């Protein structure tokens, strides 16, 4: 049975090699990335050999905890993509729970990422093990830590599988993906802000993390004595306990009825919908605002925008050692404007296969023009206050008199990106997959379009803003008054032209945004 599951997993891996170019490229990418992670991880865990033992152990503990965290988070993010993760898929096979458990465990150990992490983990034997007994403990401890990762990850996935199959569970998960991506930026940010991450900080962190199951193994290897032995045994017992819990969870998951099709609750009726104008513009703007908070893609977009803004504000603070320059006050808001408006470069993408509902109605360019305006209005409703706050905060960190010029510049540049975005939306529309992927925001085969349209709009918007930006940066801050008129005036002209093109291209546009993903 174990062999069968291993072969199944190997076949799933090999299957992606037979797929289309995109899938094959994805496989090659994971292979290279896996190899890199294995080598770099091994190096980072092995190289501390040159450091003093205590420091090496601390680094090992932190890395091992990170590996365990990735083992827990990774499969959750892959849920629904890897069929061996969901017990419900296997519930109908004539297998005993024990057979299934062994098979599933074996299949989680097979694959690019498990092998890569096991290889990286062995580095700790070289980096941390300083005595013969320590190395011996390492030879036993590393496989135990690896098994611990496997079992804990399975336990979490199986325990949550019922929730993960529901629509709400998947929605939460989609947003969690972006939080993970944002989270990876935190250490860099902390370093950037000049916070003191010296040996003391590492030691302090390691002091806590040494009590995590995998951290304990590293601590044991470093200790090399009886305490170390006890720690490795404790982790082995912990792993066995988790395995037992996992089998219980698996049993329950196999017989529990699937509740995923039982619908979610009701949504609150809009309180402010009446404020928007009647007609296409108001309807589209209201719909977009609802999508911004209800659709995982909308949430992810705004969470990332918010994260970028915060990063920029923090970096401003760290650079104000000398006297602040206009650049520091205006640049974050200007860049913020570019980023906020970036969503307008593929305006119809979020509608996807539902775009026909608009298409069967629009008979004149004016209707599509109002539609585009509605979408841009929705972005502005959230983006304008957000940029305003950014301007205030950066202003307070630099010089308060730059708040207004910065805000005006940021708002205006939004309009400029809208202008370019109106054209990319009708000429280079692409499908936004509902299942969010960390590597691409487009359907297979449309990555190039997505890249050109977003980078093009950003560069285009930035270039268009230069006539106003340059005087502002040179100290003539009052020129920024022109920016909103310039930006939104151009956006108005662009909508006029783009809506004519878009209406002519409507069938093609619909095909572009409803590709299979």
């Amino acid at each position, binding site marked *: 049975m174990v062999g069968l599951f291993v072969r199944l997993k190997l076949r799933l891996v090999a299957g992606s090699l037979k797929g289309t170019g995109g899938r094959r490229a994805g496989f090659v990418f994971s292979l290279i990335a896996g190899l890199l992670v294995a080598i770099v991880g091994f190096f980072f865990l092995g190289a501390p050999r040159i450091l003093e033992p205590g420091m090496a152990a601390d680094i090992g503990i932190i890395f091992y905890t990170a590996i365990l965290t990735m083992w827990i988070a990774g499969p959750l993010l892959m849920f629904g993509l890897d069929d061996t993760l969901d017990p419900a898929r296997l519930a109908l096979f004539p297998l005993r729970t024990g057979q299934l458990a062994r098979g599933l465990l074996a299949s989680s150990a097979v694959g690019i990422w498990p092998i890569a992490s096991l290889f990286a983990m062995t580095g700790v034997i070289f980096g941390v093990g300083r005595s013969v007994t320590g190395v011996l403990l390492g030879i036993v401890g590393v496989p135990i830590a690896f098994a611990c990762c496997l079992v804990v990850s399975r336990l979490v996935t199986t325990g949550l599988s019922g929730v993960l199959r529901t*629509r709400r569970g998947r929605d939460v998960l989609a947003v969690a993906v972006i939080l993970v991506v944002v989270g990876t930026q935190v250490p860099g940010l902390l370093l950037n802000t000049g916070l003191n991450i010296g040996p003391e900080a590492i030691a302090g962190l390691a002091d806590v993390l040494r009590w995590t199951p995998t951290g304990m193994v590293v601590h044991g290897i470093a200790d090399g004595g009886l305490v170390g032995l006890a720690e490795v045994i404790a982790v082995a017992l912990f792993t066995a306990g988790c395995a037992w819990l996992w089998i219980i969870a698996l049993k329950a998951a196999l017989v529990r009825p699937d509740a995923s*099709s039982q*619908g*979610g*609750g*009701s*949504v*609150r*009726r*809009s309180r402010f919908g009446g404020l928007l104008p*009647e*007609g*296409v513009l*108001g*309807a*589209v703007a*209201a*719909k977009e605002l*609802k*999508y911004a908070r*209800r*659709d995982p893609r909308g949430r992810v977009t705004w969470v990332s925008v918010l994260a970028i803004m915060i990063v920029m504000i923090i970096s401003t603070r760290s650079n104000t050692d000398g006297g602040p320059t206009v650049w520091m006050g205006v640049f974050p808001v200007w860049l913020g404007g570019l980023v906020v408006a970036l969503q307008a470069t593929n305006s119809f993408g979020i*509608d*996807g*296969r*539902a775009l*026909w*509902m*608009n*298409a*069967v*109605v*629009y*008979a*004149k360019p004016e*209707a599509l023009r109002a539609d585009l305006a509605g979408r841009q209005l929705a972005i502005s409703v959230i983006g304008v206050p957000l940029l305003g706050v950014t301007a205030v905060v950066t202003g307070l960190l630099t010089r308060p008199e730059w708040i207004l010029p910065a805000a005006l510049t940021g708002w205006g540049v939004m309009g400029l990106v809208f202008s370019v975005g109106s054209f990319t939306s009708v000429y280079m529309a692409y499908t936004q997959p509902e299942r969010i992927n960390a590597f691409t925001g487009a359907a297979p085969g449309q990555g190039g379009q997505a890249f050109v349209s977003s980078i093009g709009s950003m560069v285009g918007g930035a270039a268009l803003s230069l006539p106003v930006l340059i005087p502002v940066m040179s100290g003539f801050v009052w020129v920024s008054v022109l920016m909103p008129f310039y930006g939104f005036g151009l956006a108005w002209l662009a909508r006029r032209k783009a809506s004519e093109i878009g209406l002519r291209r*409507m*069938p*093609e546009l*619909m095909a572009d945004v*409803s590709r299979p993903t």
Partner: protein
Amino acid sequence: MTEAVRTRGLVKAFGQQVAVAGVDLVVPAGSFAGLVGPNGAGKTTTLSMITGLLRPDGGLIEIHGADAWADPVKVKASIGVLPEGLRLFERLSGRELLAYNAELRGIPRAEGEQRAAELLAVMDLLDSQDKLVVDYSTGMRKKIGLAAALLHNPAVLFLDEPFEGVDPVSANTLAEVLRRYTASGSTVIFSSHVMDLVERLCDWVSVMSRGQIVAQGPIDEVRRGRSLNEAFLELVGAGESGEGGLTWLGSSSG
């Protein structure tokens, strides 16, 4: 007889594959018309082209005498569409979806709300009106889709497989609404491959096979005394399935 829909030589190819090879579809005004054909006959492609969702490679489409692709202003206001695949705005509630459509169609807000409320009641969706469409079942999705298509009281309604995957209760509701609608002189054209249903509901039928219309007219003329199913199988040229093979299947073979 005035014609609600007429196409002449409608053609569409996807690469090498010719999906629709010169369709001359005629549907008289006020009829409840069925467009039947086996899978891959080109029903969906034909309906998509007529409703302006797919660009034809050639041919002419007229809806109440107006050219669908040359005069979209007139045509788009007079048609309602429920395409295949239940593609709806997933993150709106049923009620919001109807309000959205009403506003797009330029129906005043109060009037739109009134119509939406009545449609929701008739479709038996009042309990789920504030749930997101993504959480709807297939039957509920078809009903909300039909409600959205009816909201602006179109003269001609195009429905692609409206009864597929719908439970009998919802199907009955859908059929009742459509019957009332055609009784007032409006036209319904729906595609299906359930012959019993077409036989029961329709007074006009067009049979498609391999991208062409092989028969069309009042249902009794097409049937000519047979059941529609028999007539259909003969028209699309489906032979008797071979008796060979599958000898192992069934309990008699041991």
